[in-house]
């Protein structure tokens, strides 16, 4: 069984949702990003997404844009992504890499996969690569036994959801709202509906991201999803240091174990 399958099986056995935290590699520096990710793991994240800072992050709101910009201005190099993934592995954690496609395309898809595996990474989340364009990545991920986490959105048709989950492995990333990344007051009832629609097409675990920032929201999402994905709120916490990141992870980890499903969220 692949690592992510085993991880989600265990989380299911504990009758809770998984907590997945995101931070960009190299933010604010490579060394500090390793410490921040370790704090995330210590606080209770089951899986971390190591983000690749990119010059043109069209899916990201101001918080993550600014973090990517800081990392790049501080001299982040793409190959350091693997050092950061290695640090997660060495800390006893699990990592996937979240990246826009051009850095992987430019590095070479096979080379990227090879170096990711060597660092102990489990797969890629690809926000601007849809399965329709992913032929090479489908082959390479198969060869290296890496997981392919594609995204579904509230605007996805049934046909597209079916096609996307079929190409996915590990888990499916459901974007809770139509929009860019960023903490929000409310995750939106659309998320539960999207999970319900996606669930009809797959047995894979479904993670919900975009907008979650509190334990209460995590508990709400945990009532209908298999994983709660938190990004911008961690980036905001990272400005205050590892202690704040750990504290947020602990709060969210409590949330995914509460499953205090609000009545407003249809199962």
């Amino acid at each position, binding site marked *: 069984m692949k690592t992510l399958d085993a991880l989600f099986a265990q989380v299911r056995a504990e009758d809770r949702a998984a907590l997945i935290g995101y931070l960009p590699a190299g933010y604010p520096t490579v060394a500090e990003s390793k410490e921040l990710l370790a704090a995330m793991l210590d606080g209770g994240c089951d899986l971390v997404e190591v983000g690749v800072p990119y010059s043109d992050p069209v899916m990201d709101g101001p918080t993550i844009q600014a973090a990517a910009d800081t990392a790049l201005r501080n001299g982040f*190099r793409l190959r350091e992504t693997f050092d950061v993934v290695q640090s997660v592995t060495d800390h006893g954690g699990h990592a996937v890499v979240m990246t826009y496609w051009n850095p992987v395309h430019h590095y070479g898809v096979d080379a990227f996969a090879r170096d990711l595996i060597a660092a102990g990474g489990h797969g890629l989340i690809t926000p601007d690569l849809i399965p329709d364009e992913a032929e090479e990545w489908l082959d390479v991920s198969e060869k290296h036994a890496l997981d392919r986490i594609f995204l*579904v959105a509230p605007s*996805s048709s049934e046909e597209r959801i079916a096609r996307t989950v079929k190409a996915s492995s590990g888990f499916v990333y459901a*974007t809770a709202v*139509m929009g860019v990344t960023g903490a929000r007051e409310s995750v939106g009832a659309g998320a539960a509906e999207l999970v319900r629609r996606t669930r009809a097409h797959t047995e894979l675990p479904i993670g919900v991201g975009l907008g979650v920032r509190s334990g209460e929201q995590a508990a709400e999402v945990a009532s209908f999803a298999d994983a709660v994905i938190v990004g911008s709120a961690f980036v905001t916490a990272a400005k205050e240091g590892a202690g704040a990141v750990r504290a947020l992870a602990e709060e969210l980890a409590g949330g995914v174990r509460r499953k205090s499903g609000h009545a407003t969220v249809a199962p």
Partner: protein
Amino acid sequence: MTERQRNPHDPDERGHFGPYGGRFMPEALIGALDELAAEYDKAQRDPAFVEEFTRLLRDYANRPSLLTEAPRFAEHAGGARIFLKREDLNHTGSHKINNVLGQALLTKRMGKKRVIAETGAGQHGVATATACALMGLECTVYMGQVDTERQALNVARMNLLGAEVIPVKTGSRTLKDAINEALRDWVTNVDTTHYLLGTAAGAHPFPMMVRNFHTVIGEETRRQILEKAGRLPDAVAACVGGGSNAIGIFHGFIDDPDVRLVGFEPGGHGIASGEHGATLSEGTPGVLHGARSYLLQDDDGQTIEAYSISAGLDYPGVGPEHAWLKDTGRAEYRSVTDDEAMDAFQLLSRTEGIIPAIESAHALAGALVLGRELGQDGLIVVNLSGRGDKDMDTAAKHFGYVEDS
């Protein structure tokens, strides 16, 4: 313009021109791209749509645009004859109006009330604001903060036309970042909003659709040059930023193998300086803004900021069909520096009394070189894609007509 037949130069059904194009986009936008592709497909087969588009081009945009011979300018080009396709005489002063009218009509067909657009020099922003005023659509234009400063007059124009102009303060604060911000708006408001992309780049169906709205340039030019010169030109010259005016005029001659198609990219301070926007000449294949094409990028696949004196050309990407035309050898791409473009800008002004856009001046500078290569019997058509009124501030500083502030 007649109802369109399937064009043998169309991409495959997923938008690929050879290995280029496609859709490298967030899943959240795929539904909107599918809707747009389906609506466009229906529209171009709907005689009522084609008739309305043709009527607007004729009665509103002032088409067909003239083909003007430029003999005094051509004296500096080794004696070759040079004709100018006068897109500068279109309403709003550039070729941009063709695509904008087409997409605004599509917006109405899709029942959307709001349009967003990006703009570099402001030509596309002004054209979009114009079409939105004409059709009663709400309009928001994203423009890099650097560009709002060097093209302040166009910001005022857009405001006058009722558009909201949002200065983009992220990244290089130019066209690339304006596109990023427009895409973020689109993914958030896609139910109500059409993204009226201004060049033949981006995700499918934009490169094909924008091209097709501009092929009227090439169709008219081919007819006009046969009338005026009695033969096809030896070369067609156009400037290339994203590549919409070039692809529009190239397509009039793409099946005429003896006509050379030559695109001129912004060489900025010279290729060796590293400060340029010569994507096809100096870039490598990559993915940006929804399509695979040539791209200015560093060793890590991070986009390199382009530079040109022309706000409309400093874009680090280029439309995917140009990438394909380069690889297949059907078109050739060269670069022209700021200084060469500005010399041609002044030369055309003083020899023909026509002030070109600095973008178009790159094609004019290229034509001077082509003319010398072709010699006495050469015949060249230059796509004069826009007028230069908007560039007076830049020109006055460049030539020292005013104190550099």
